[in-house]
C-alpha cells in the first residue's frame, strides 16, 4: 500500500487569475470520508483536469463546486470554496428555500434580499448565498448524457426560460442558436430543432447537454467524465470543443482517461483516496511528476 501524505499545492497563481479557490475541503458520506482536506486553485480561462483511480472522489470533488452534493442527503461538506473570492459554503449556515443564511435573522435576509440578480455577498460575517445562483454560474455536464425528453430547442431553451434571462422570443432563438454553435452542434441539428433530443446519437446528445449548460452563460463549466460513454470520434469532437470553450469559460474536467487529460488540460490535479496527491501544470505532471505515486499512476502501473 502506498502511503499518501498531503502536500500543499506546488504552484501559486496570481490572485486576479483565480476563478475558484478550494480551501481545506472535506466531504463525508455518512461516516466515510470521500474528500480529505483538499486545497487548490482553479485558474480563469484554463482547463483544469482532475484525474485519479475509480472511487478516489473525483466526481464528489467537482460536484462540490456547484453544490450538487446538496441533493445527496448523506453528504456533508466542510471547508471553503471561494467563487470569485466569495465563499459558497458559509459556515454555521441555515438554509431557507435554497438561500443559505448567515447571522442576520432569517426574515431580514428574506425581506432585504431580492430573489434575482447579484446576491452572492460575503463580507466577513454577513453573507448569504443563493445556491440556485451558484449553480447558474457554475454549469455542469454529466457523465451520462441526460437530455430532457423534450425537443432539441426546448432542451437548450430550458435554462433560459427558468432563469427568465431573455425577454423576447427572438432573443431566445438567438441565444439557443449561439449556444448550439458554441457546442459545435448547430450544423447537425439546425433543420430539426423540433425533433426529440433523444433521437440524437450519444455524442450529439452530450454536445446538446453542453449547449444547454452554455445557454445560461455560466462562468465555470464542470465536466464530469463527459466522454466516458462516447466513441473516439465523438470524444475527439468534445475535446476540441473544450479547447475552444476556454476562451470564454473556466473549465474543470474529471476524466478517467490520462491521455485526454494530457491533451486538453493546462493544469492537472491527481486525487487518490480522497487526497490531493499532486497538483501542477499538466506538462509537468506528465513529464516530471514530483511524486512516485503520480508517476506510477500515469504510467499505468495501477488504477
Amino acid at each position, binding site marked *: 500500500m502506498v502511503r499518501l501524505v498531503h502536500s500543499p499545492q506546488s504552484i501559486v497563481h496570481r490572485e486576479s487569475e483565480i476563478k475558484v479557490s478550494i480551501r481545506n475541503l472535506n466531504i463525508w458520506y455518512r461516516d466515510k470520508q470521500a474528500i480529505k482536506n483538499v486545497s487548490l486553485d482553479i485558474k480563469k480561462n484554463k482547463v483544469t483536469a482532475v484525474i485519479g483511480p475509480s472511487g478516489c472522489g473525483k466526481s464528489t470533488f467537482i460536484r462540490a463546486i456547484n453544490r*450538487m452534493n446538496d441533493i445527496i442527503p448523506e453528504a456533508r461538506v466542510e471547508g471553503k470554496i471561494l467563487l470569485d473570492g466569495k465563499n459558497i459554503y458559509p459556515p454555521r449556515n441555515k438554509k431557507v428555500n435554497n438561500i443559505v443564511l448567515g447571522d442576520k435573522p432569517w426574515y431580514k435576509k428574506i425581506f432585504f434580499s431580492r430573489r434575482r440578480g447579484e446576491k452572492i455577498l460575503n463580507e466577513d460575517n454577513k453573507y448569504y448565498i443563493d445556491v440556485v445562483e451558484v449553480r*447558474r454560474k457554475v454549469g455542469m455536464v454529466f457523465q451520462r448524457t441526460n437530455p*430532457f*425528453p423534450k425537443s432539441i430547442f426546448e432542451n437548450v431553451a*430550458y*435554462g433560459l426560460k*427558468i*432563469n427568465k434571462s431573455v425577454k423576447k422570443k427572438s432573443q431566445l432563438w438567438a441565444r439557443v442558436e449561439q449556444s448550439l454553435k458554441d457546442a459545435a452542434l448547430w450544423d447537425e441539428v439546425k433543420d430539426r430543432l423540433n425533433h426529440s433530443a433523444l433521437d440524437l446519437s450519444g455524442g450529439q446528445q452530450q454536445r446538446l447537454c453542453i449547449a444547454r449548460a452554455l445557454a445560461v452563460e455560466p462562468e465555470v463549466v464542470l465536466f464530469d467524465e463527459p466522454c466516458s460513454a462516447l466513441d473516439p470520434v465523438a470524444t475527439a469532437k468534445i475535446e476540441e470543443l473544450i479547447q475552444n470553450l476556454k476562451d470564454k469559460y473556466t473549465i474543470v474536467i474529471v476524466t478517467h482517461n490520462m491521455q485526454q487529460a494530457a491533451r486538453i488540460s493546462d493544469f492537472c490535479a491527481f486525487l487518490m483516496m480522497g487526497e490531493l496527491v499532486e497538483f501542477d501544470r499538466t506538462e509537468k505532471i506528465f513529464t516530471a511528476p514530483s511524486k512516485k505515486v503520480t508517476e506510477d499512476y500515469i504510467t499505468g502501473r495501477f488504477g
Partner: protein
Amino acid sequence: MNGRRLKELVGFTILRLATFIILLVLFVIISFIAVRGIKVVNWGFLTEMPRAGMTAGGILPAILGTFYLTLCAICFALPLGVGAAIYLTEYAKQGILVRIIRVGVNNLAGVPSVVFGLFGLAAFVKFLRFGVSILAGGLTLGILILPIIIRASEEALRSVPQSFREASLALGATKWQTIRKVVIPSCLPGVLTGAILGVGRAAGETAPILFTAATFYKMSLPHSILSETQALPYHIYALMTEGTHPEVQVPIAYGTALVLLILVLGIDLVAIILRNRARRRKW
C-alpha cells in the same frame, strides 16, 4: 424419466393449473354476467329513466350518478394525492416521519370500504351538513382511492431518472421549477394510470356511497352536487333486495351489472394502454 424431471413436470403442471383456474374463474364471472345481462341491455336501457317501480325502463340515472360520483371523487383525490406524493418523494426529508406517513397511507388502503362509508356519514353528511349527496359520496370515494393515487404517483415520481433532476438543478433551476417543468411532465403517464385505476375502483364501490350518496329510487336526474343520486352498484343491490317483482328485477340487475363491468373494464383498459405507452418511451 428420472426423479428430477418428474418433479419439474409436476411443479410446472401445478403452476399452469393455478393460472388456468384464475382465468377460468374470471371467464365464468364475465360470461355469466354477460349471458344474463345482455338480454335487457339495449339503447333504451342506457338512456331511459326507470319506470314502473324499477321493473321497466332504463338505468340512465344510475349511470349518470356513478359518473358524477366518480368525477367528484377524482377531482378531490387527484390533486390531493399527487400533491402528497410529490411532497413525500421530492421535498420531505426521508426519515422516520415519512416512513410513518407511508405506513399510514398503506393502512388506509387496507381499511374496509364500509368503514369509509361510516366515516363519510359522520364527517360529510352529518358534521359538514352536506346531507346525503353526490358531494358527500364523492368525497368519501375520494378518500377511498387516495392511497391508490398516492402510491401510483410515488412510484411514477421515483421512476423519473435522478439525472433529469440533476441536469435541471445544475442549470440554476429551483427545486420547484425542476419539479414542475421536468419531473411532473415525465411522470404524468404513471400518475394518470394511478388516477384511472382509482376511477375504476371508485365506480365499482357500493359500501362508501351506501350512507352518503346513494338513493334507491329517484324520479328525476340529480340536479345539483348536493342532491342524492342513484348509482350503478347500489342500483344492483336495490334491485336484488327490494321490490316485489323479482322475475323482472333480476334480469335488470344483471343488465346493470354488465354495464358496470364494461365501464370498469373499459377504464382499466385505458389505464393499461397509457401505461404501456409510457413504458415504451425511452429516456
